[in-house]
């Protein structure tokens, strides 16, 4: 593959991720609205939100790290997208693989945490403390899933994982081969996306939206962009690990939206868990399922 070709892919992959991410955000908001018997926002609302925030006149900065934090949060995800193969484009997926991707996905969290830390607002810091605790909670089942998949397919390269699944057809998909790990992953998924019922760290009424408390204008806009990437990355990762990746763009996108929609529409009707309950929940059911799934995979 020529360098020019590769560079084109590296540019295209984050852009596609952002666009798909915008629609994922729209879908989430629509879903939430429909469950609460509202109409929900129009088609381009997520984009309008971001443009509005970037164009605002009042932009409050609490210092350099506040700004760098937002840059790290967005930039980390832009980099992460190039490690996620999509139909027809592999980017640099062979240079990193599954474990690298999992750790690159922590860079934006750390960036956001630093940015919030500089704001000197206790509500923000409390939010970050809760968010990091939640990360500690959901990463345990997630890491079992990663191990299971890597062991099952004998590789940590995402391109190989996809190739193996597509060769064997539906029967070779991760969801058929490792159903228990798939369920464990699905339980962790809403927490990884920071959605219902695991979003105690934003708790508007209690800690004034936590990490977002001092964020306005392009700072909040950056977080919106980060959210688009976040939904996209996690959904695509699950499609890659369990649903055979994408043969073509149509089936790929259907799978991506389904992965995001199904667990969230179930989770939406639950009330929020407290932080310690998030830990309890995440360290119990998905971990039990994950360990059983691992036993099946390795047995």
């Amino acid at each position, binding site marked *: 593959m020529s360098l020019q070709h590769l560079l084109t892919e590296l540019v295209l992959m984050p852009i596609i991720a952002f666009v798909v991410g915008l629609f994922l955000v729209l879908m989430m908001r629509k879903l939430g609205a429909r469950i609460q018997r509202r109409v929900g926002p129009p088609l381009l609302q997520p984009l309008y939100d971001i443009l509005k925030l*970037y*164009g*605002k*006149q009042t*932009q*409050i*900065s*609490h*210092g*350099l*790290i506040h*700004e760098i934090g*937002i*840059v*790290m*949060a*967005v*930039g980390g995800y*832009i*980099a992460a997208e190039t490690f996620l193969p999509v139909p027809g484009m592999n980017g*640099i997926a062979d*240079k*990193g693989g*599954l*474990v*690298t991707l999992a*750790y690159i996905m*922590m860079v934006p969290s*750390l960036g956001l*945490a*630093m940015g919030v*830390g*500089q704001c*000197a*607002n*206790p*509500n923000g810091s409390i939010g970050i*403390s809760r968010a*990091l*605790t939640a990360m500690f909670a959901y990463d*345990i089942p997630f*890491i*079992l899933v990663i*191990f*299971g998949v890597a062991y099952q397919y004998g*590789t*940590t*390269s995402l391109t*190989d994982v996809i190739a193996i699944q597509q060769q064997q057809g539906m029967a070779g998909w991760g969801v058929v081969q490792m159903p228990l790990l798939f369920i464990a992953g699905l339980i962790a998924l809403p927490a990884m996306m920071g959605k219902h019922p695991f979003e105690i760290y934003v708790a508007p009424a209690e800690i*004034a939206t936590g990490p977002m*408390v001092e964020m306005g*204008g*392009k*700072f909040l806009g*950056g977080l919106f*962009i980060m959210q688009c990437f976040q939904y996209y990355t996690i959904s695509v990762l699950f499609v890659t690990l369990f649903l055979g990746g994408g043969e073509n763009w149509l089936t790929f996108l259907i799978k991506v939206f389904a992965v995001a929609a199904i667990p969230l529409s179930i989770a939406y009707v639950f009330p929020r868990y407290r*932080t*310690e309950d*998030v830990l309890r929940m995440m360290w119990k059911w998905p971990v039990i399922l994950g360990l059983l799934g691992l036993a099946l995979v*390795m047995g």
Partner: protein
Amino acid sequence: MSLLDKLLILSLLTVVLALFMGNRKMAGWSVTVVYAGQLVALWMMSGLGYGEISEIRSAVELTIWQYRLHWQFDALSWFFAFITVAAAMLASWFSAGGWAQAYREQGGSIRLFNVALALNVLGMLVLLASGELLSLFIGWELVSWATFMLLALGSMRYAMHYLVYAIVGAVVILAAMLMTYVQVGSLEFNQVAEAAAGLDNTSIWWIGGLFVIGFGIKMALLPFHLWQTKAYAATPGPGAAFLGAISSRMGLFAIVLILVKLIGISRLLEMPISFTFLSARDLLAWVAVFTIIFPTLTALRQHDARRLLAWHGIGQGGYMLLGIVVADDLGSAGGLMHVFNHATYQAVLFMSVTAVVYRTGTSDLNKLGGLFTRMPLSFLAMLIGIIGLAGLPPMNGFVSKWLVYRSLIIDGSPMLFLGTVIGTLGTILSVYKLIHNTFLGQLRLEHETVEEAPLSMVLPMMLLSAVIFTTGFFPGLVLGWVASVQAAVGLPVLAYHAGGIDSANGGLDMIWVVSVLLAGFAIATLIFFSGGRSRRVHQLDNYAGGHFLTADTRYQYSDNFYPGLMHLIGPWYRSSFKRMEQGLVSMLDFLSMLASGWHRHGHPSFYLLTLVVVVLFTVVM
């Protein structure tokens, strides 16, 4: 006279120089220059590190009762020696300027500090150069006492605590050596290695077990870790940076020597533990994983920055041992590379915290905050250090941990893998608390006038930060040395390239990873600045739920930073190890009381009888 002799003489000269320079102003600088000289001498031996020459022998030999003591350097010794001397040079550089002055003013003796540091380096070099088990033991004792001297500068009480552990360790090692000598009839490495293959499992259990316990005490393997944290945290800052970087790794060096070079990890696999499915290797791997998990979670609870770091130092040792006992090319490379990586970021973290202590006088995380605006370079050093410690890209800590993770996946050990990841996540939580409570959040009124640390402290920190980043960008720089070490101790050798490793089923190329990450940050910066102009506001100008904030109101969140987590895992902290230690101490107390009672009553005939029975018993058996 070989290069090795010159290096050792130079190291001895450093001690002498430190002694004569005393408390003079130039003392620290002159010692630093000689350390740099040692580093140059080591670099002249770099053929060892790149596998061009296999060993450099010392011309000095001692013969005592027909036993030949000799010294030599191979790739393993060179790798550890290079880290040791580099760490000492940077620590000395860091201490030479403003810090030394402040230390003198507080009544400390720079002479003692410099001598103690130089003695540590000398002792370690002698240890690393040991050519058979007896010289290893001599070097070991030198290191133990030198460490004691450095620790005693901080707190005599904790240093004594260490000393008790060190003496127990030395006795255990001596016992293991005696057993080796009885079984093999020699203490030469090659002869022991040859004979080890023929020994039965029971002997290997005893010999290997005793060696691991003895050396593990230095490395603070669980459950022998209690001495380390308090002692390191109390040591004067640059000394703590040096000790935290490399001192404990001498235990790892010796364990690699014994387990890998002499016994062989494959042998450990053939030693099952009755009634379990585990082998001796699995036991060691689990000890390593517990050494990762428990100290890391304990670090999470600390509110003193230095103790927090010292606890992490114990935890990171677990990754090294784990990688080495997995013993494939990836895992052992990860374990060995982690020695280097850990030295770099642990040193920079201790230095950064020391710089904060130098300026503010405290390392209590509840009494700091917001220092980024006053000490931005120290912040940068700590940031790069914590990313390395947490093992996130793009820093070097990620590469070594990635190698360990990868080998555990290949090895098919999900629970060990899970343990290492729990360690990493716990580390992320605790290092965020460290940087948040020190440099982020609200600046206290009394710290308004704080300035950046002096250049003599900032430069070594920046240098180390650059090393952390560069070896993360081009891990091949370190992997070259690591591959030579693997070849020297008989491990499978890693095939590497400048950016990491190629592998059919999932490689790593850090050049790409880091470049893409930096490109991502660059694009994100462009996106960020495409928005409207932002206005900087004062730290008190924020949303306080309708209150007006003033400078004398603390508006900071630092104490009990993770209440949700502690609510759940708080009850797990039971100080079980501390109680175990206390139990052991009371038992010893009781025994010594009994013994002294016997002694005072005086029953010579009874003693004689006991002695005769014991002797007879031994002879008959």
